[in-house]
């Protein structure tokens, strides 16, 4: 057995520290590209914002989808195009290096102050050229003031809803948090395959033909279908023009740089041909997809960055053909894909608002690339390209793309083992999505078998059926720990003492039984969800005024069939899959369990005493805090706590089952925080589970910090036990499991990780992602123990919270000179 048990990534890091030079598996074009950008701080590129502003200025009063298409065309005509040394894939949304893009139509009203703050901001900072900042202030910002969706939404909510959503100054209150004002749409996946099959010219030709069949006497034809088709045609022209301009530049470079002539001519030839035409090779297929993907980013700011669908499926025929014909080798294909990963990483998702930044800390991105799963026929779809993506994930030291692996009952053994090996490599990718949880739920919501089988992962943990899914409005994140606080404090929160924000559910101090208390909490919970639904009603209503997606609509069959833009509330034939987030699940369950046990069962503390302790943030109440922390907790496979969790889940499901239909959508219950549990925690004072004031809430469907004492099997089982599987109105539950390299060392270790994944799959849990524990994490935990309180380390028969160990024991574990079973 190995003694220095380092993950592949750690071994690489150690070698780099030792030699002072980066270590790569292969030294190819992609690694050269990566070297150039790896440590750059991103810069704001204003061209997209500027050209959209210029175009919109000229198109007032026109149908929004047409305006949008014109803006895209104006961009395509005028934006700087780049051809970069070593980069075979042409097309980017900003200057060379790492860049962020402005979407002033979204929250441009806060552009000025955001730009001022961005370079020094702690979470995800950006630089901006002073000349560009000037243009923002003088040209872009003034045009959009008063016109943005953010402003429109800000005035739309009724007072009771407003109170829960915004502070007086319009900033987020982190209670019932809308997420629509900082992203133009929820996560999304385009049907990339249609561009490969028909070419943009084929899609355009169909639109042109239909345009010719319109009836000029028909008002609907003239006012609805005509703009849609014109927008389609113009968008097609725009993306083709954009591609062609790259070909022109590439030819110029070929002239000026004879040594690399062939390289540049290759790019030119491809950009002349795709995405206009169906690709003739794997390289052209990748380039075509890349153009669509990048143009989509120019079109709008999709939440989590536009997702990339089932790449191993739609690129497969081209890959297979080229390999067999000897046109490309696997290594060359991998190099090409890695060039794409680098280019993806250069576009950095830029959030102007505080909420946006805080919910997406660390330049978060989830441009999901899906591999594996079953095909439309329900048969395993794994192919050589799936394995190539995994190999690239192991070899290439970059946390792009966000690789998502679908797992089903008959996933091949090799696939599962390679997935496990890839996870072990240290990056924690791929995340796993469970076919056998997802597909039945999609069917229950009206999908056909083929559509459900063919789903693509989208964003952080969602799924899409391209050409069937039509929902695009971002949804509420709800702070249920705040609901609990309001239950205890008569609709008030200690952070805003004196202001009644929520429901006063009665004299909790006088309740005799836990059922009374739980009932009161559930009323507050329901109140919060009510307002989330009111938010959603307004968001759906107003978004169509501000956003159009001519590219997205062009690529969506239902949009094309009904001449309806993707952002319209109703698209005939569509299935609208939205959701709302339950943030603070573990925190709330544990708090209710503590109340049940110590207030109502063992009668060791009264509600009044609890309120006092919370007011004092447990200072002077240390014994009480310890007692509360000893209550049964979620994540330990303990029925006492899990029963409460299941009840909370069911009450939320009952609400959405009853009230989603009238909105015309499925607003499913989800437990996916991004990084919102941190800012949400900042407004919640101490909680009855012993959590201290203003500290992070529990994350996703994980246990509260430090509450999971029985290891990851118990966390999975608690997850399972708290689900209500008789309901269909459910979506993802985010589950992060910490993994130690030494624990899964060697072939035996891989096998055990596979077994764990198989058990997760059997339990029909939606999502799982492994965070590989490494030396960096442990050192971080030493520096900031308050953020790592649930970092459990297991030591030959003993488990301990790393942060509770003595310092030199921690150092021992970090040094890892002996074999330990963490």
């Amino acid at each position: 057995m190995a003694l220095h048990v380092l993950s592949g990534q750690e071994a690489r890091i150690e070698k780099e520290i030792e030699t002072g030079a980066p270590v790569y598996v292969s030294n190819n074009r992609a690694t050269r590209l990566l070297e150039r950008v790896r440590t750059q701080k991103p810069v704001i590129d204003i061209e997209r914002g500027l050209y959209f502003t210029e175009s919109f200025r000229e198109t007032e009063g026109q149908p929004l989808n047409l305006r949008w298409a014109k803006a895209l065309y104006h961009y395509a005509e005028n934006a700087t195009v780049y051809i970069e040394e070593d980069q075979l894939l042409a097309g980017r949304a900003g200057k060379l290096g790492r860049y962020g893009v402005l979407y002033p139509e979204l929250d441009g009203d806060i552009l000025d102050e955001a730009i001022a703050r961005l370079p020094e901001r702690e979470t995800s900072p950006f630089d901006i050229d002073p000349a560009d900042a000037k243009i923002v202030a003088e040209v872009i910002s003034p045009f959009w003031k008063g016109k943005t969706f953010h402003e429109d939404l800000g005035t739309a909510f009724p007072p009771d809803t407003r109170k829960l959503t915004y502070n007086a100054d319009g900033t987020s209150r982190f209670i019932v948090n809308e997420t629509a004002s900082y992203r133009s749409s929820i996560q999304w996946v385009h049907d990339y395959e249609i561009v490969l099959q028909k070419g943009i010219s084929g899609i355009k030709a169909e639109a042109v033909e239909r345009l010719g069949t319109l009836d000029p006497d028909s008002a609907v034809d003239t006012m609805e279908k005509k703009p849609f088709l014109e927008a389609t045609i113009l968008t097609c022209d725009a993306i083709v023009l954009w591609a062609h301009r790259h070909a022109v530049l590439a030819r110029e470079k070929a002239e000026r740089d004879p040594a690399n002539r062939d390289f540049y001519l290759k790019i030119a030839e491809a950009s002349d041909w795709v995405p206009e035409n169906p690709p003739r090779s794997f390289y052209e297929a990748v380039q075509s997809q890349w153009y669509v993907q990048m143009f989509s980013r120019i079109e709008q700011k999709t939440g989590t960055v536009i997702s990339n669908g089932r790449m191993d499926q739609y690129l497969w025929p081209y890959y297979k053909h080229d390999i067999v014909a000897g046109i490309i080798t696997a290594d060359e294909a991998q190099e090409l894909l890695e060039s794409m990963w680098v280019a993806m990483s250069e576009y950095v998702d830029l959030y102007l608002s505080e909420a946006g930044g805080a919910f997406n800390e660390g330049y978060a991105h989830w441009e999901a690339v899906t591999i594996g799963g079953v095909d439309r026929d329900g048969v395993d779809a794994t192919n050589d390209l799936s394995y190539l993506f995994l190999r690239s994930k192991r070899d290439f030291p970059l946390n792009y793309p966000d690789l998502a692996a679908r797992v089903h009952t008959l996933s091949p053994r090799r696939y599962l083992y390679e997935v496990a090996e890839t996870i072990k490599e240290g990056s924690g990718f791929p995340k796993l999505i469970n076919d056998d949880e997802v597909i039945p739920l999609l069917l229950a919501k009206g999908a056909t078998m083929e559509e459900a089988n063919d789903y693509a992962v989208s964003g952080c943990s969602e799924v899409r059926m391209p050409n069937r899914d039509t929902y695009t409005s971002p949804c509420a994140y709800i702070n249920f720990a705040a609901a609990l606080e309001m239950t205890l404090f008569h609709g008030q929160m200690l952070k805003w003492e004196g202001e009644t924000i929520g429901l006063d559910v009665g004299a909790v101090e006088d309740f005799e039984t836990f059922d009374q208390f739980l009932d009161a909490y559930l009323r507050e919970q329901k109140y919060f969800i009510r307002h989330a639904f009111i938010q959603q009603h307004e968001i759906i209503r107003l978004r169509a005024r501000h956003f159009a997606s001519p590219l997205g609509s062009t690529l969506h069959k239902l949009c094309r069939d009904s001449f309806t833009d993707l952002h319209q509330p109703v698209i005939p034939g569509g299935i609208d899959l939205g959701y709302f987030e339950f943030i603070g699940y573990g925190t709330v369950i544990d708090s209710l369990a503590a109340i049940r046990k110590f207030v109502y069962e063992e009668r060791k503390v009264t509600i009044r005493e609890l309120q006092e302790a919370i007011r004092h943030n447990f200072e002077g109440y240390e014994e009480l805090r310890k007692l509360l922390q000893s209550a049964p907790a979620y994540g330990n496979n303990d029925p006492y706590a899990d029963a409460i969790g299941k009840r909370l889940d069911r009450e939320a499901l009952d609400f959405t089952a009853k009230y989603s239909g009238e909105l015309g959508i499925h607003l499913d219950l989800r437990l996916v925080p991004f990084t919102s549990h941190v800012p949400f925690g900042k407004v919640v004072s101490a909680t009855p589970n012993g959590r201290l004031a203003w500290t992070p809430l529990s994350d996703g469907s994980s246990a509260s910090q430090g509450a999971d004492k029985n290891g990851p099997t118990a966390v999975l089982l608690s997850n399972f036990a708290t689900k209500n599987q008789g309901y269909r109105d459910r979506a993802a539950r985010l589950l992060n499991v910490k993994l130690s390299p030494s624990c899964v060392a060697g072939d035996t270790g891989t096998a055990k990780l596979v077994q764990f994944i198989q058990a997760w799959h059997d339990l029909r849990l939606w999502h799982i992602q492994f965070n590989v524990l490494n030396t960096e994490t442990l050192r971080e935990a030493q520096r900031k123990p308050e953020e790592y309180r649930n970092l459990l380390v297991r030591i030959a028969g003993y488990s301990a919270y790393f942060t509770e160990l003595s310092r030199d024991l921690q150092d021992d574990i970090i040094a890892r000179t002996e074999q330990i079973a963490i």
Partner: protein
Amino acid sequence: MEQGLISNIQHYSLQDGPGIRTTVFLKGCPLRCRWCCNPETQSMEPETMKGTVTGTWMTVDQVLREVEKDEIFYRHGAGGLTVSGGEPLMQGAFTLALIREAKKRYLSTAMETSGQGDSGFLLEIAGLLDTIYMDIKSMDEAKHRKWTGAGNAAILQNIVQVAYLKQRGRLILRTPVIPGFNDEPEKIEAICQFVETLPPGIGYELLPYHRLGRDKYTGLDRDYPMEDVKLPEGRIETLRAIVEGHGLGLWDYSI
């Protein structure tokens, strides 16, 4: 009804046998090894460590119901129950009853034992187990006594008997390598020679010393006997080479 004094039941054990397992740690051990990293399992009495009481009386059924909670994780590999401690043989009757019932419930079974205990129970249990781990600490009787509180004669005899059992699961011998006790090449050489006298197909592995249970002694208000010793740099590699030189080792045959 048979009850056992249980120190801890740990789910998701990855180092205590094939697959994903649940390890049941029994309380009570006849030895007092200086390097013990689970000191709270030594005494047969419940005691308090860092504010928590360790040592609960549980029936076979109670123990197995806890183990069976993770049943879904045992399915795809050869995971299941591992009995450890302390020294399971110190509660031989309970351990035997536990293993018997586990088999009735189609659980895979493993045990870790120091080998210091009643041969009757040991052999009967070994005949039922899928995997058995036995410690082999040193061939040096005097040193063995000085560092563990007992000699090695009974242990070696138990190992031989288990090795020759016609009906038994996999036998894996383990040597905890302790600085100052058995970390010299001659010591390991002697153990290897002994192992070579046994029937073939027995696994053997070295477990390098670690002091990660040290905090537990503080929690129990006890001094840590090992102080600040460490294995010399490169020593384990040298010793492993000796083991491999004898054609011994551990094969990952039952994943």
